[in-house]
C-alpha cells in the first residue's frame, strides 16, 4: 500500500489503575480498506477503539486523520470528525423508537420545530432495509431482540456518513443471514472509500470480509498481515502466542437425569417444552435469536412464572418460584448478558465469586469468613486463568472474557449439579473460548449436568452430547452428537419461519 493512510495512530499508550491497557501501539487504516483488528480479550482492542471514538484520552501518542492531527475529546467530537463507532455494548435509548435513536439530535423538522416523524421513520426503515432487515421505524428499542438492536446500532453508525467506521464485535448477536447483509453493506462502504475497522472473534468471518489484519496481544501490537497471506493458525498463534486446537467434548459417562422438564409453558412465549439433562451430559440448545431459549431458562430458574408443566430435579418434582429456589436446588446459571445479569461491576473479583454462596461461607453470627472467601476466589482465579492483578480488583476494570470467567467462578463455587450457560463464549476471544470449552467438558466429566445455549453452530456441534433445537418457543428438533449436522439444525431452527417470516 503506497496510499496515504486515512487514519494513523502512533505510540498510543494508555494506563488504567492496575492495568497497562496499551503500550506504544501504532495503528493505521487506508481509505476503502476493511481492517480486521484482532486479539484476545484484554489485548487492548476495545481501549484503542474507545480512544479513537473520544471516550478515553490516550496518555501518550498521536492520532492523524487525513494527515491532520486530531484530538477527539468526546463521542460527539469523533462523530464530527467523521468517525462512527458501533460499540460492543449497545448504546441505544431503550424508551425511544428505532427512528428516534437513529436520528437522535438530528431529527428532520417541520415548521415550529416539530419533528417530522413520518419522514424520520421512512428514512430509518430505508437504512434498515439496506441492511436486510425489516424493523419498523416506530418500534421501541426495548421491544426488539438483541440482534435487532444491533442492526439499529449499525444503521445509526452508517447514517452518519462517516469516512471511518469502527465496529467492535458487531456480529456477536447476529444470525447468519444478518451477518451476510452486514458484510454486503461493508463492501458497499468500502467502494465509497470508507475505512472500516472490524473487530470479531470469529476468524471465519474475518477471513471472509477483511483485507488486512492487525493483531494485538497484551496491550501491544504483535504485527500486521494482508489476509491473503495469513493462515488461520498463523493468526491464532500471533493472538495467543501458542497453538490452539478447537476443543471437542470427550465422552463422559452419562448418568441419571438431573433435570427433567415436562410440558413446560410460560407467559413468556415458551410452549410445551420437554427436556432432559443427565449427569455428565452436555445438552446444547440451538435456535435463532428470539427462539425462546433464554426464556426457557428463565422459567426453569424461577425468574418468569410457569403456566403449565412440571420440573423435576433428581427425579423429584420441585416448585422453583425464585432464583433463590433454583440456587437451593443446585442450579447455576451463567446468563447471556454478564454486565446486566451476571456481575456487580463495582465489586471485586472476590466479592462477585462468592455472591451465590455467602451464607455457606459465614459463621453462626452471619460473619463471612474472610480467609475462606479469599481462598475460594483465588482458587478459581487460578483454575479459570482469570487475568487480574489480585482478587480485590474491581470487576469493572477486567476485560470481557475475564469478566465472563468471574461469572463462571461464581457458579462453580456453588458446586451446582446443573449448570446452565447462556452463550458462554459470546464476545470472548479464541484462547479464552477454547479454555471455556475445555472447562465445560471437564465439568461434565466430573458429573455436572450442563445445559448450553449457543448461537454458534460449531460450538454446539463440537460440545453437545445431545442437541435440542428451538423455534418460536417450541422444541422443533432433537439430535444426538453423531446424527447432528448444521443443515439439520438450521432446518429445525427455521421450521415455523419459512412462510411467516421469509427474507424480503
Amino acid at each position, binding site marked *: 500500500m503506497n496510499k496515504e493512510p486515512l487514519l494513523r495512530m502512533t505510540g498510543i499508550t494508555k494506563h488504567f489503575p492496575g492495568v*497497562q491497557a496499551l503500550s506504544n501501539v501504532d495503528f493505521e487504516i487506508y481509505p476503502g480498506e476493511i481492517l480486521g483488528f484482532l486479539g484476545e480479550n484484554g489485548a487492548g482492542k476495545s481501549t484503542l477503539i474507545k480512544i479513537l471514538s473520544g471516550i478515553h484520552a490516550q496518555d501518550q501518542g498521536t492520532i492523524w486523520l487525513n494527515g491532520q492531527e486530531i484530538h477527539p475529546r468526546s463521542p460527539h467530537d469523533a462523530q464530527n470528525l467523521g468517525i462512527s463507532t458501533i460499540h460492543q455494548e449497545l448504546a441505544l435509548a431503550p424508551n425511544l423508537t428505532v427512528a428516534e435513536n437513529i436520528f437522535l439530535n438530528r431529527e428532520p423538522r417541520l415548521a415550529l420545530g416539530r419533528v417530522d416523524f413520518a419522514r424520520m421513520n421512512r428514512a430509518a426503515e430505508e437504512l434498515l432495509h439496506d441492511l436486510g432487515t425489516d424493523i419498523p421505524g416506530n418500534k421501541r428499542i426495548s421491544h426488539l431482540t438483541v440482534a435487532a438492536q444491533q442492526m439499529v446500532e449499525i444503521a445509526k453508525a452508517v447514517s452518519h456518513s462517516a469516512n471511518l467506521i469502527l465496529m467492535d464485535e458487531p456480529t456477536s448477536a447476529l444470525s447468519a443471514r444478518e451477518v451476510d447483509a452486514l458484510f454486503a453493506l461493508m463492501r458497499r462502504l468500502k467502494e465509497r472509500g470508507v475505512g472500516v475497522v472490524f473487530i470479531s472473534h470469529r476468524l471465519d468471518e474475518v477471513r471472509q470480509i477483511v483485507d488486512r489484519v492487525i493483531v494485538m496481544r497484551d496491550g501491544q501490537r504483535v504485527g500486521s498481515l494482508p489476509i491473503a497471506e495469513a493462515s488461520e493458525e498463523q493468526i491464532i498463534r500471533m493472538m495467543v502466542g501458542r497453538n490452539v486446537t478447537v476443543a471437542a467434548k470427550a465422552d463422559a459417562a452419562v448418568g441419571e437425569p438431573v433435570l427433567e422438564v415436562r410440558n413446560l409453558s410460560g407467559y413468556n412465549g415458551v410452549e410445551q417444552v420437554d427436556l432432559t439433562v443427565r449427569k455428565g451430559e452436555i445438552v446444547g440448545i440451538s435456535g435463532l435469536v428470539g427462539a425462546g431459549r433464554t426464556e426457557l431458562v428463565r422459567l426453569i430458574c424461577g425468574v418468569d412464572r410457569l403456566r403449565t408443566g412440571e420440573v423435576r430435579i433428581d427425579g423429584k418434582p420441585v416448585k422453583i418460584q425464585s432464583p433463590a429456589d433454583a440456587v437451593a436446588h443446585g442450579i447455576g446459571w451463567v446468563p447471556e448478558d454478564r454486565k446486566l445479569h451476571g*456481575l456487580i461491576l463495582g465489586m471485586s473479583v472476590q466479592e462477585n465469586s462468592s455472591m451465590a454462596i455467602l451464607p455457606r461461607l459465614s459463621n453462626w453470627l452471619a460473619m463471612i469468613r474472610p480467609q475462606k472467601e479469599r481462598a475460594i476466589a483465588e482458587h478459581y482465579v487460578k483454575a479459570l486463568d482469570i487475568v487480574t492483578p489480585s482478587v480485590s480488583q474491581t470487576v469493572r476494570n477486567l476485560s470481557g472474557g475475564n469478566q465472563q470467567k468471574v461469572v463462571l467462578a461464581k457458579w462453580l463455587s456453588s458446586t451446582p449439579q446443573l449448570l446452565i450457560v447462556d452463550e458462554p463464549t459470546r464476545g470472548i476471544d479464541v484462547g479464552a473460548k477454547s479454555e471455556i470449552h475445555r472447562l465445560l467438558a471437564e465439568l461434565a466429566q466430573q458429573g455436572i449436568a450442563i445445559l448450553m445455549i449457543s448461537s454458534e453452530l460449531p460450538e454446539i456441534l463440537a460440545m453437545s452430547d445431545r442437541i435440542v433445537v428451538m423455534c418460536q418457543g417450541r422444541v422443533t428438533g432433537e439430535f444426538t452428537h453423531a446424527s447432528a449436522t448444521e443443515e439439520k439444525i438450521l432446518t429445525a431452527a427455521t421450521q415455523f419461519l419459512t412462510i411467516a417470516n421469509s427474507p424480503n
Partner: protein
Amino acid sequence: MNEVASKSTAAARSSAQIRMDSLRNLLKVSEFVIFIVVIVLLIGGALINPRIMGVENLKIITRDTAILAIAAIGVAFPIITAGIDLSIGSIVGLGGVLSAFFIMNWGMPIFPSILLALLVGVVIGWIHGLFVTRLNMHGFLITLVTLGVARGGILVITNGIPITGLPDEYTYLGQGYLFGLIPIPVILCVVVAIFAHYLLRYTYIGRQIYAVGGNIEATRLSGVNINARVVLCYVISVVCASLVGVIQAGRLSLGHPATGEGFELLAITACILGGLSLMGGQGTVPGILVGSALIGVLQNLMVMLNINPYWHKIVIGLVLLAAITFDYSRRKQN
C-alpha cells in the same frame, strides 16, 4: 512479530505506579479529607472563640453529632440499596411523641413505652419495604407519603400541644452523662455504629445489601433474597430515627410535635459527606460518623460564632451541594 517489547520493565513500571496510585487514593478518600476539615474547623473556630474547644462545648458537639449520626446510620441503609428514606424527620418527631404519650397518657413504664415506640417504627419501616419490594416503588415516593402522614399523626396525638412532665429516668437518655463526661447519646450512638458496622462490613447480609445497590438484578439471580434485604434496610432506617426521637424528647424533656422537622436533610447530608452515593452500593459507617461530625461541628460553630440562625439551613444546604458536586465530578472522572 518483533514488536513485543520487554515485558519485565513494563511490569516493574506498573507496580511502582500502583504504589503511587494508592497514596493518591488515600487523599481521594473523601472521609479522610472531611476528617481533616472537621479538625481544621474546630481549631480555626477556637482561635476566634476559645470556648469552642472547651470541655462543656465539646460535650455539646459530641452529643449533637451522636444524635445526628444515629439517624444518618439508619438512613444509610436504604441509600446503600440505591433507595432513600425521606420520612425520618417526621419519624423522629413521632418516636419522641409516641413514647412520651405512652408514659404520660397511658401510664406505661419507661422502658416498655420506648420499646413500643420503636416497634411502631419497625411496622412503618416494614410497610415502606413492602411498597418498595412488592410494587417496585421507589423509596422516595412511599417515604415522602410517611413524611406527611406521620407529622399529621403527631398533631392528632398531641393536639399540637407538647407532652410535658417526663420523668428524670427518661430525660437522662438525652441529657445524662456517663462519669459526668460522656453524653449518653454518644454511648447509644457507639452501640448503633458498632452494630451497623458489623452488619455491613462483616456479615453476608451486609454484603448482599451492598450488592443490591450495585446491581439488583444480578444479585437476585445469584439466589439472594433481595426483598428481605430491602425490607430490613427500610426497617433499620425508621427504627434508628425513632430512637433519635426518643433521645431528642429526653433532651428537651418533652414530646414536642415539631421535633425532627428538616432532620432528613441533615441525616442525608451527613451520609453523602461520609462517602455514600445516591446511586447506592457504597459507603461505610466510619464515613457516616465523620460526615455527621462535620455537620455537628458546623452547626455548633455557627451558634458559637453568633451567625444569624436564619442562615444555618442555607449553610447546611450549600454543604450538601458541595458534597454532591464532589461526588458527581469524581464519578465523571472515572
